[in-house]
């Protein structure tokens, strides 16, 4: 009897403690690389805080909401230098943070994910576009916010096909990531009925990105490089390494538009995007960071907002509860793309419309009208459930 009483008292203590509305603290880590990857165009040079600046805005947004729910969000940043142990850094970060937004190349991301396999830490990939992370190398503790190369390529292909630009001249860089992007573009061409009339490789011979008399040389080089091509409608460039693609527009032998890594670029975000209330987040971002918002910033914002969305819906900061909610049927997030974004339950990839931008304007948004799907039109972009190689757990 006494034992029973003690039990009841114990229970009521627990209950009243929960009702006292102690503030819930949600700690989010940000694991990125030190240094920036240089771009060919000076106006596109990434800022040192590319990516995390978006997460910081989301933390502000989450805290504004958190004020009303007694939830507080904090962000801790760790930048890895070359050769630093990613597993160790991830483990240290996970000691203090239930969630880690990761902006690392695929191999490093996998090391971090595997190092945290036995913890309940949730990783959110806001940088790597590699399809293999969502396919044969998928992990149950990694949610993918960044779109895949295949989603980007499909988004571009749908538009080019709608435009009746079906004959592509594909130019591929000589680096591994360029080849992966080219794989996605070839797959997209086959899926949506475009034809690659010829493929060229642009060898990276090294050398300085910027020279004082660079323009003269490029003006002679690029027309010659594209001179021998058979009849084509559009030049599609796969150059994630930023070696040549931005030199192509206006310099091809024939007067043809350029798409892919330059010209019309598929992307998760663009500073020119202002539809669907996006002007509001663009303004908030500029106010906070004194620069415009990039795709990486948006991916990190979305990642941190997904955590905020889940903590507000579950009224919990527990990574497991949040993870269950994110993976469940009730999760969706609004991210200024004109429709709800949800997770593909088979590989934890965020479904999302892809913008097609030319550097000044958003030209279109895919999926294009008429590309139908039995579940979600967003699943016409990227690898769909029947084709997946992912086995979670």
């Amino acid at each position, binding site marked *: 009897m006494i034992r029973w009483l003690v039990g009841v008292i114990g229970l009521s203590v627990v209950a009243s403690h929960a009702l006292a509305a102690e503030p819930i603290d949600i700690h989010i880590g940000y694991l990125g690389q030190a240094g920036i990857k240089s771009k060919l165009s000076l106006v596109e040079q990434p800022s040192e805080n590319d990516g995390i600046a978006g997460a910081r805005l989301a933390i502000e*947004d989450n805290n*504004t*909401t958190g004020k*009303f*729910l007694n939830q507080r969000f904090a962000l801790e940043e760790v930048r890895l230098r070359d050769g630093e142990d990613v597993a160790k850094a991830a483990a240290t970060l996970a000691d203090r943070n239930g969630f880690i937004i990761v902006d690392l190349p695929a191999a490093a991301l996998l090391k971090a994910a595997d190092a945290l396999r036995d913890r309940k830490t949730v990783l959110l990939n806001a940088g790597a576009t590699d399809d293999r992370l969502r396919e044969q190398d998928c992990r149950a503790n990694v949610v993918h916010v960044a779109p895949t190369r295949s989603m980007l390529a499909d988004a571009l292909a749908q538009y080019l096909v709608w435009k009746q630009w079906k004959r592509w001249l594909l130019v591929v860089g000589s680096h591994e990531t360029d080849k992966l992007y080219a794989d996605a573009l070839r797959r997209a061409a086959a899926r949506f009925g475009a034809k690659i009339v010829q493929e060229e490789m642009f060898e990276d011979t090294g050398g300085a990105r910027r020279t004082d008399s660079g323009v003269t040389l490029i003006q002679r080089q690029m027309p010659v490089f594209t001179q021998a091509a058979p009849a084509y409608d559009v030049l599609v460039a796969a150059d994630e390494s930023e070696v040549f693609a931005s030199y192509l527009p206006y310099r091809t032998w024939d007067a043809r538009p350029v798409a892919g890594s330059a010209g019309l670029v598929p992307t998760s975000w663009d500073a020119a995007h202002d539809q669907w*209330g996006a002007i*509001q987040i663009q*303004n*908030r971002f500029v106010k906070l960071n004194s620069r415009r918002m990039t795709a990486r910033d948006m991916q990190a914002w979305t990642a941190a*907002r997904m955590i905020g*969305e889940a903590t*507000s*819906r579950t009224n919990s900061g527990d990574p497991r509860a949040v993870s269950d909610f994110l993976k469940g049927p009730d999760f*969706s*997030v*609004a991210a200024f793309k*004109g*429709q*709800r974004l949800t997770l593909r339950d088979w590989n934890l990839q965020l479904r999302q419309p892809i913008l097609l931008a030319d550097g000044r304007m958003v030209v279109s948004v895919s999926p294009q009208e008429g590309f139908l799907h039995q579940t*979600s*039109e*967003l699943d016409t972009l990227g690898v769909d459930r029947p084709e997946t190689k992912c086995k979670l757990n």
Partner: protein
Amino acid sequence: MWRRCLLSVTVLFAAATPAFAFIAYVSNEKSNTVSVIDTDKWAVTATIKVGQRPRGIEFTRSGKFVLVAVGDDDKIEVIDTATQQVVDSLPSGPDPELFTQDAAGKLLYVANENDNTVTIIDLENRVRLGDIQVGVEPEGMAISPDGKILINTSETTNMAHFIDTATRQIVANVLVDARPRFAQFKRDSSELWVSSEIGGTVAIIDPAKRVITGKIEFNIPGLRREAIQPVGIGITKDGKTGFVALGPANRVAVVDATTHKVTKYLLVGQRVWHMAFTPDEKYLLVTNGVSNDVSVIDVSAQKVIKTIQVGELPWGIAFAEP
């Protein structure tokens, strides 16, 4: 014979007598104009140039002026209905979108999207009285029929904030589905409806208990869930029938406001946004942003009877109160 003759005379007479005309004002977000619609002619009779990006639009309680939020100019313009010209402006916060007035028409409450605030404006003296901090991207505004509670919805915070109009403090927050756009009370205060554009639902909130008691769900055969985006709401004065604009689903849902079930979907123009009843409640006019027109719905027949071309991207619509 006699009877038939009499009948046709009556019909003729009825047709010849002009129906009592109402005037609607429609904000055209892209063309920076306000279209004036005469419901007798069902045609645009004037187009008024306003500031940049006009969206929220309402009559003052006196019916003499129309207020229109011109977001990109960070103010609210005042249109004189007699001259149909902009005669003044009110100092709102940055990027005003939707607003509501107190019953006396003395105070205006404005949602400022860019600032996470609701601004209070003294309409008589046309000065700013203060701000209330709310959630991220405030949008929908409504005032309870007794004037005691102001509702603001915040689009990224996903809440309906209950603000005490006397103390100007938030007294409750109700979490709703993603991107709440619009809030509407029933006349008898028994229910507050809040539409969630991205969530795809309308929450039914008990204003006394401040909890969600039900949800209106929409299901249109052949349309993906993502395309169903509820925004504007209209509820008849008797509280029996609701109308919900479903954005890119290009339909207005007719809702039994007692059971909260959809009874019918009316096909209107593209990206249907906001709506307003004629003061006699015979007609409901809805703005179709992408097709640049306004659909006229016969409320009792629950049928679309007309389409009127207006400016580019029509957004809000207002009638004078009877």
